Protein backbone atom coordinates (compact mmCIF):
# COMPACT_ATOMS: atom_id res chain seq x y z
CA UNK A 1 0.00 0.00 0.00
CA UNK A 2 0.94 3.63 -0.20
CA UNK A 3 1.07 4.26 3.52
CA UNK A 4 1.70 2.54 6.82
CA UNK A 5 -1.09 0.11 7.56
CA UNK A 6 -2.04 -1.10 11.01
CA UNK A 7 -4.49 -3.77 12.01
CA UNK A 8 -6.82 -4.10 13.65
CA UNK A 9 -7.95 -0.48 13.85
CA UNK A 10 -9.82 -1.23 17.05
CA UNK A 11 -9.42 -4.04 19.55
CA UNK A 12 -11.40 -4.68 22.69
CA UNK A 13 -10.04 -7.44 24.88
CA UNK A 14 -10.62 -8.82 28.32
CA UNK A 15 -8.10 -8.27 31.03
CA UNK A 16 -5.60 -11.11 31.09
CA UNK A 17 -5.88 -11.98 27.41
CA UNK A 18 -3.03 -11.70 24.93
CA UNK A 19 -3.25 -9.40 21.92
CA UNK A 20 -1.26 -8.98 18.73
CA UNK A 21 -1.05 -5.72 16.86
CA UNK A 22 0.23 -5.67 13.31
CA UNK A 23 2.07 -3.04 11.32
CA UNK A 24 2.76 -3.05 7.59
CA UNK A 25 5.32 -0.32 6.88
CA UNK A 26 5.78 1.50 3.62
CA UNK A 27 7.56 -0.78 1.19
CA UNK A 28 11.34 -0.32 1.28
CA UNK A 29 11.40 1.51 4.59
CA UNK A 30 14.16 0.08 6.74
CA UNK A 31 13.29 1.76 10.01
CA UNK A 32 10.14 0.96 11.96
CA UNK A 33 8.92 2.48 15.21
CA UNK A 34 6.20 1.66 17.73
CA UNK A 35 4.73 4.36 19.95
CA UNK A 36 1.92 4.37 22.46
CA UNK A 37 -0.47 7.26 23.00
CA UNK A 38 -2.71 7.20 26.02
CA UNK A 39 -5.90 9.26 25.96
CA UNK A 40 -5.09 12.93 25.61
CA UNK A 41 -1.39 12.30 26.10
CA UNK A 42 1.77 12.57 24.05
CA UNK A 43 3.65 9.80 22.30
CA UNK A 44 5.57 7.27 24.36
CA UNK A 45 8.34 5.49 22.48
CA UNK A 46 8.24 1.72 22.73
CA UNK A 47 10.71 0.15 20.30
CA UNK A 48 12.67 0.75 17.12
CA UNK A 49 13.63 -1.72 14.41
CA UNK A 50 16.44 -1.33 11.94
CA UNK A 51 15.73 -4.08 9.47
CA UNK A 52 14.72 -7.05 11.62
CA UNK A 53 16.82 -5.99 14.58
CA UNK A 54 15.71 -4.06 17.61
CA UNK A 55 18.91 -2.63 19.12
CA UNK A 56 17.20 -1.29 22.20
CA UNK A 57 14.14 -2.76 23.87
CA UNK A 58 14.31 -0.65 27.00
CA UNK A 59 11.31 1.44 25.95
CA UNK A 60 8.95 -1.50 26.32
CA UNK A 61 6.99 -0.83 29.52
CA UNK A 62 7.16 -4.36 30.92
CA UNK A 63 8.13 -7.90 30.05
CA UNK A 64 4.53 -8.49 28.98
CA UNK A 65 5.36 -6.50 25.85
CA UNK A 66 7.35 -7.95 22.98
CA UNK A 67 7.81 -7.10 19.32
CA UNK A 68 9.28 -8.66 16.27
CA UNK A 69 9.82 -7.81 12.66
CA UNK A 70 10.25 -10.33 9.89
CA UNK A 71 11.62 -9.97 6.38
CA UNK A 72 12.45 -6.37 7.06
CA UNK A 73 8.78 -5.62 6.63
CA UNK A 74 5.80 -6.55 8.81
CA UNK A 75 6.06 -6.03 12.55
CA UNK A 76 3.96 -7.45 15.35
CA UNK A 77 3.62 -6.00 18.82
CA UNK A 78 2.39 -8.55 21.33
CA UNK A 79 0.99 -7.75 24.74
CA UNK A 80 0.55 -10.70 27.06
CA UNK A 81 -1.84 -10.82 30.00
CA UNK A 82 -3.26 -7.41 29.15
CA UNK A 83 -4.02 -4.96 31.93
CA UNK A 84 -6.39 -2.00 31.93
CA UNK A 85 -3.43 0.40 31.92
CA UNK A 86 -2.46 -1.02 28.53
CA UNK A 87 -5.49 0.71 27.01
CA UNK A 88 -4.17 3.24 24.52
CA UNK A 89 -3.66 3.89 20.84
CA UNK A 90 -0.64 2.04 19.52
CA UNK A 91 1.02 3.84 16.63
CA UNK A 92 3.46 2.42 14.15
CA UNK A 93 5.71 4.51 11.92
CA UNK A 94 8.31 3.81 9.29
CA UNK A 95 11.03 5.81 7.58
CA UNK A 96 13.25 5.10 4.59
CA UNK A 97 16.49 5.63 6.46
CA UNK A 98 17.48 5.07 10.04
CA UNK A 99 19.01 7.44 12.50
CA UNK A 100 16.46 10.16 12.45
CA UNK A 101 17.58 11.86 9.28
CA UNK A 102 14.23 11.64 7.61
CA UNK A 103 10.67 12.01 8.76
CA UNK A 104 8.66 9.04 9.94
CA UNK A 105 5.32 8.23 8.38
CA UNK A 106 2.65 7.07 10.77
CA UNK A 107 -0.17 4.61 10.46
CA UNK A 108 -3.67 5.31 11.68
CA UNK A 109 -3.04 3.39 14.89
CA UNK A 110 -4.70 0.55 16.74
CA UNK A 111 -7.01 1.60 19.55
CA UNK A 112 -6.73 -1.02 22.28
CA UNK A 113 -9.30 -1.16 25.03
CA UNK A 114 -8.83 -3.61 27.89
CA UNK A 115 -12.02 -4.26 29.84
Amino acid at each position, binding site marked *: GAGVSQSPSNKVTEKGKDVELRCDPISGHTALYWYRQSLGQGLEFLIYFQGNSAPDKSGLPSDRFSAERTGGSVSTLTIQRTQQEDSAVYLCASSPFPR*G*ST*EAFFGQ*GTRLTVV
Partner: protein
Amino acid sequence: AQKVTQAQTEISVVEKEDVTLDCVYETRDTTYYLFWYKQPPSGELVFLIRRNSFDEQNEISGRYSWNFQKSTSSFNFTITASQVVDSAVYFCALAILNGQNFVFGPGTRLSVLP
Protein backbone atom coordinates in the same frame (compact mmCIF):
# COMPACT_ATOMS: atom_id res chain seq x y z
CA ALA B 1 19.28 12.74 26.64
CA GLN B 2 16.93 14.61 24.40
CA LYS B 3 13.84 16.49 25.46
CA VAL B 4 11.13 18.51 23.75
CA THR B 5 8.95 21.00 25.58
CA GLN B 6 5.72 22.47 24.30
CA ALA B 7 4.64 24.77 27.07
CA GLN B 8 1.25 25.57 25.58
CA THR B 9 -1.13 22.75 26.41
CA GLU B 10 -4.17 24.26 24.71
CA ILE B 11 -4.74 27.33 22.57
CA SER B 12 -8.03 28.70 21.30
CA VAL B 13 -8.22 31.33 18.60
CA VAL B 14 -10.93 32.75 16.41
CA GLU B 15 -10.78 32.02 12.72
CA LYS B 16 -8.46 34.29 10.74
CA GLU B 17 -6.28 35.04 13.73
CA ASP B 18 -2.59 34.22 13.58
CA VAL B 19 -1.27 31.75 16.12
CA THR B 20 2.21 30.61 17.11
CA LEU B 21 2.95 27.26 18.68
CA ASP B 22 6.13 27.13 20.73
CA CYS B 23 8.68 24.33 20.79
CA VAL B 24 11.86 24.23 22.84
CA TYR B 25 14.27 21.32 22.57
CA GLU B 26 17.26 20.01 24.45
CA THR B 27 20.12 17.95 23.06
CA ARG B 28 23.88 17.85 23.36
CA ASP B 29 24.29 16.50 19.86
CA THR B 30 25.41 18.85 17.13
CA THR B 31 23.58 17.01 14.37
CA TYR B 32 19.88 16.67 14.91
CA TYR B 33 16.56 17.01 13.16
CA LEU B 34 13.40 18.78 14.18
CA PHE B 35 9.90 17.97 13.03
CA TRP B 36 6.35 19.15 13.33
CA TYR B 37 3.40 16.80 13.06
CA LYS B 38 -0.33 17.50 13.03
CA GLN B 39 -2.81 15.10 14.61
CA PRO B 40 -6.36 15.96 13.54
CA PRO B 41 -9.38 14.42 15.29
CA SER B 42 -9.11 11.40 12.99
CA GLY B 43 -5.98 10.45 14.91
CA GLU B 44 -3.37 9.90 12.24
CA LEU B 45 -0.19 11.94 12.57
CA VAL B 46 0.54 14.02 9.51
CA PHE B 47 4.08 15.14 8.81
CA LEU B 48 4.44 18.90 8.26
CA ILE B 49 8.12 19.79 8.18
CA ARG B 50 11.66 18.58 8.89
CA ARG B 51 14.61 20.78 9.68
CA ASN B 52 18.23 19.79 10.24
CA SER B 53 20.45 21.49 12.77
CA PHE B 54 22.65 23.11 10.16
CA ASP B 55 19.85 24.91 8.40
CA GLU B 56 18.46 27.82 10.35
CA GLN B 57 16.71 29.35 7.42
CA ASN B 58 13.08 30.01 8.18
CA GLU B 59 10.53 28.34 5.98
CA ILE B 60 7.13 29.34 4.72
CA SER B 61 4.59 27.03 3.17
CA GLY B 62 1.33 28.70 2.40
CA ARG B 63 -0.20 29.81 5.69
CA TYR B 64 2.40 27.89 7.67
CA SER B 65 5.80 29.20 8.69
CA TRP B 66 8.54 27.94 10.94
CA ASN B 67 11.16 29.85 12.90
CA PHE B 68 14.24 27.85 13.89
CA GLN B 69 16.62 29.56 16.31
CA LYS B 70 19.56 27.52 17.61
CA SER B 71 20.52 30.30 20.00
CA THR B 72 17.34 29.71 21.98
CA SER B 73 16.87 26.04 21.05
CA SER B 74 13.48 26.83 19.65
CA PHE B 75 11.55 25.73 16.59
CA ASN B 76 8.29 27.65 16.60
CA PHE B 77 5.38 27.16 14.22
CA THR B 78 3.08 29.95 13.09
CA ILE B 79 -0.24 29.57 11.33
CA THR B 80 -1.37 32.72 9.60
CA ALA B 81 -5.07 33.44 9.10
CA SER B 82 -6.09 30.30 10.95
CA GLN B 83 -8.99 28.18 9.74
CA VAL B 84 -11.30 25.76 11.49
CA VAL B 85 -9.59 22.88 9.67
CA ASP B 86 -6.38 23.77 11.49
CA SER B 87 -7.93 22.50 14.72
CA ALA B 88 -5.75 19.60 15.83
CA VAL B 89 -3.04 18.59 18.23
CA TYR B 90 0.37 19.66 17.01
CA PHE B 91 3.50 17.81 18.05
CA CYS B 92 7.08 18.97 17.84
CA ALA B 93 9.70 16.20 17.68
CA LEU B 94 13.47 15.81 17.79
CA ALA B 95 15.73 13.08 16.43
CA ILE B 96 19.50 12.92 16.69
CA LEU B 97 21.79 11.45 14.08
CA ASN B 98 22.29 7.76 14.88
CA GLY B 99 19.48 7.97 17.36
CA GLN B 100 16.89 5.30 17.69
CA ASN B 101 13.69 7.22 18.05
CA PHE B 102 11.92 10.47 17.63
CA VAL B 103 11.39 12.29 20.90
CA PHE B 104 8.03 14.00 20.89
CA GLY B 105 6.84 16.94 22.90
CA PRO B 106 3.56 16.64 24.81
CA GLY B 107 1.64 18.40 22.06
CA THR B 108 -0.41 21.59 21.82
CA ARG B 109 -4.13 21.32 21.21
CA LEU B 110 -5.22 24.10 18.89
CA SER B 111 -8.89 24.96 18.60
CA VAL B 112 -9.88 27.39 15.89
CA LEU B 113 -13.37 28.72 16.47
CA PRO B 114 -15.59 29.96 13.64
